[in-house]
């Protein structure tokens, strides 16, 4: 089983983040006050931010190595992401959004939508979807390409309580059934108690290692 290993230092204007942890299959929660660099860590893993120092790898695959100038493009990192604001393409239908993440494969996209309980949304107008529906479609889009890791940034925070509980259950099921490496950034203590297999505590400016 491969493990996501992160040991990086990222410097952005007025902000320094150092993070070192490893995340095996299961849900690793990145917890800590806002502004402690959790989302920036996800951005570095996703390849949208370049670490100034250190390495990121998943199993044997190196994603970034600042000292050796390695920076694999986002496209080639094979990651699934779900952010607070789902970032769906509003001008494309839900099935299109999912299909685009798997090279246009409609069958795979349809099956994935069904798995997340959103097959009835296939051809709806994306603009009209509720928050929970959006996150289901985003989850399908994140998982349809069998990603090497799943990155979740406050994915439930704009949802009402029952929807939040449904989606927590769904994420837990999917992570277990697919043996996924999942990182979850959250401020919600209930997310932590319901989902965390491991917790990485962030403090502004530094990181403590993961605890079970």
């Amino acid at each position, binding site marked *: 089983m491969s493990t996501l290993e992160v040991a990086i230092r990222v410097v952005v204007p007025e902000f320094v983040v150092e993070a070192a942890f490893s995340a095996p299959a299961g849900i690793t929660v990145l917890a800590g006050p806002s502004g402690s660099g959790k989302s920036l860590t996800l951005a570095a893993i996703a390849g*949208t931010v370049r670490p100034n120092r250190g390495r990121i790898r998943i199993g044997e695959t190196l994603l970034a190595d600042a000292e050796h100038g390695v920076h694999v493009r986002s496209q080639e990192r094979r*990651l699934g992401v779900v952010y607070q604001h789902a970032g769906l*393409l509003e001008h494309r239908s839900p099935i299109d959004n999912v299909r685009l993440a798997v090279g246009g494969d409609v069958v795979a996209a349809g099956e994935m939508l069904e798995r997340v309980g959103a097959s009835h949304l296939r051809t709806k107008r994306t603009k009209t979807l509720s928050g929970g529906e959006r996150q289901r479609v985003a989850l399908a889009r*994140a998982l349809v*390409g069998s990603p090497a890791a799943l990155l979740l940034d406050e994915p439930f925070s704009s949802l009402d309580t029952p929807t939040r509980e449904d989606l927590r259950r769904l994420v837990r099921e999917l992570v277990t059934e697919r043996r996924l490496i999942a990182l979850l950034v959250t401020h919600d203590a209930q997310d932590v108690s319901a989902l965390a297999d491991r917790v990485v505590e962030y403090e502004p400016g530094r990181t403590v290692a993961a605890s079970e």
Partner: protein
Amino acid sequence: MSDWFPFWLSLRVSVIATVISGVLGVAIAYLLAKWRSRLASLVEVVFTLPIVLPPTVLGYYLLTSLGSRSVLGGVWEATFGAPLVFTQTGAVVAATVSALPFVIRAARAAISNVDPRTEEMARVIGLPEWKVARVVTLPLAARGIGAGIALGFARALGDFGATVMVAGNIPGQTQTLPVAVYDAVQSGDGDTARTGSLVLGAVAVVVLLVVTQVFARRR
């Protein structure tokens, strides 16, 4: 108006010029929006010049750089066996250069306004760069691009100064509608001047309506 040739010529010239400046302008705008450097700003200034230059001055520069004695003009003549200036093709070139900055400016602004996070998300889900442009950036910038193309069309249709310098004022050959209006006034042909101005004025109003009501409306 007895002779409708200038109207049809103007329409043909401006449609061709709009297509060329649309394709070229969106491509240039895309590169300018993504390529952030001092040189990019300089390139943008050069492409924007036709908006602020007096059209006759723009026409003068085109004429000197495309005329038979110029390098470009010479290459054109060697290739096609006829000069570029004082032809309908010359009118297309003048209209295209006049329209291009309107397309570039509007498209560049619209492309820069697309939320970079949406583009990043598209990259993370695996879309190659050209597909990010086709599926995400350009569709989200479509309204701004459309507005720029509409304004470019109006500019191409209405061009006088550059066209008259590069294509001349040959009735039945290179005389476009704005030039015909000028000609009619000079020769006291009030009927042609009135009709031509009415047609050009109506097109301008329609284009502005399209730009403000269709393309610029908030989503």
